[in-house]
């Protein structure tokens, strides 16, 4: 399901399946993108932050056009205990790899990988510096 912001429109509540993973896309070229994410993340129920939320920063190939404060993104990852991933969607190879990573995370969050829960995986993803 793709959405431009949260909360999701309520008209489709009855049609929506269970949500296993929420990925927030932040485009480093757009301040508006970060702001939108900061506002939307507050609409997420607390139980999702046990490993079912991740922040994906896109556009990192064009560092010259970086318009957002990277510290703000790191901070957000820390505050919400969620991993921050980076990718460049304009490169097809990176696109495919990122999709595979997200799929793998989704499999874990949906419970398809026996022995690994989303919470344990999330704690594996934390940077050592955070502790």
């Amino acid at each position: 399901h793709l959405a431009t912001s949260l909360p999701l429109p309520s008209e489709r509540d009855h049609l929506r399946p269970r949500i296993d993973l929420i990925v927030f896309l932040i485009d480093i070229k757009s301040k508006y993108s970060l702001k939108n994410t900061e506002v939307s993340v507050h609409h997420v129920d607390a139980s999702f932050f046990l490993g079912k939320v991740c922040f994906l920063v896109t556009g990192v190939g064009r560092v010259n056009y970086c318009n957002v404060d990277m510290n703000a993104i790191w901070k957000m990852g820390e505050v919400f205990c969620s991993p921050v991933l980076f990718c460049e969607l304009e490169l097809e190879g990176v696109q495919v790899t990122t999709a595979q990573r997200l799929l793998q995370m989704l499999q874990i969050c949906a419970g398809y990988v026996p022995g690994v829960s989303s919470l344990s995986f999330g704690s594996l993803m934390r940077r050592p510096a955070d502790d």
Partner: protein
Amino acid sequence: MDETVAEYIRRIILKIPRDEIKTMLKKWGFLSEIQLQTVNFCQVKENISRDVAQLCEENSADIKQAAVLDIIYNQTHPNKRVWSVYQMNKAGEEMEFFDLRYFKNKFKRRLQSALKNVTINFKEHEDNAIWIRIAWGTPYKKPNQYKTSYVVYHSQTPYVFISASVFKSNLPLLCQALIAASNYHDISEMELRSHSLNSLKDIVFKRYSQNFQTYYPRPLQERPVAQESADLRIIQENRNEKERIERLNWEAFGDGPLPKIEFAQYKLETMFKSNPKLDVLDKEPFRCLVKFSSPHLLESLKSLAPAGMADAPLSTLLTCIPQKARNYFRIRERTALLPGSFVSP
């Protein structure tokens, strides 16, 4: 024969893209077929230009013929210049029969009586346009052929498109000659400027696809929703919002290609509204200039809302550009008498 003319012709050839040189020379018609065949058009432009200049010298070209070549070049590449639009007004209502020869004579006489050193050339173009090329001089100097002004006049309309050159001081004289020759009362500059002459014509002659407010917006099911149904596993949560934005955009900009303008400029003279604790600048209007520029401004404005960079509907100050036929605005403070902000010429 004047060496300056040959040099001038040579410089014009250098400006023309290599694959167009032959067709343009043919259109010019000054050199014969046999002469054209002796030129090798596959060599470097430097050499082509020198060969052609040599041939022109043999044919004793004068400035009049060189001017025709210059006009042809500008007619093919009008986008190299910046064009402004002027509108002429008539006192009475009668449409007099337009006589081209009368127009040319009157125009020439008027200009030349005021300024002796000036070169004037006329050429008709397709779509009923008259192109006038003017090279300006001073009472003491010969006309400078490299700094020319161009005027495009559609005789059936009150609009004139002028690409003035560096000599802006000659503009009033040019305008006077135009109204005298075309039997109009006065002429005023519209706040509309662009590189693309055809787009200016589209805006002013209302040839772009305009949009009229409808009570029943066009049913969106007609639109090809190819992207949505491509992968049924992808579900757009905000589809209603997306459709709303598209509909508003369609109402504001219409469907077809938009005229090409490069900037919009807004001069603001409004009061600075801020935190009342900041005791700054609240007595006088705050002057500032906002300029939007883009290779194709209207298309980029049209794509702002769908790209998520602006809220739909866009401000009417931006969307009114083709309808109002202007891209330079001055916005003053709204007074107690007028509702809304006052947009004035």
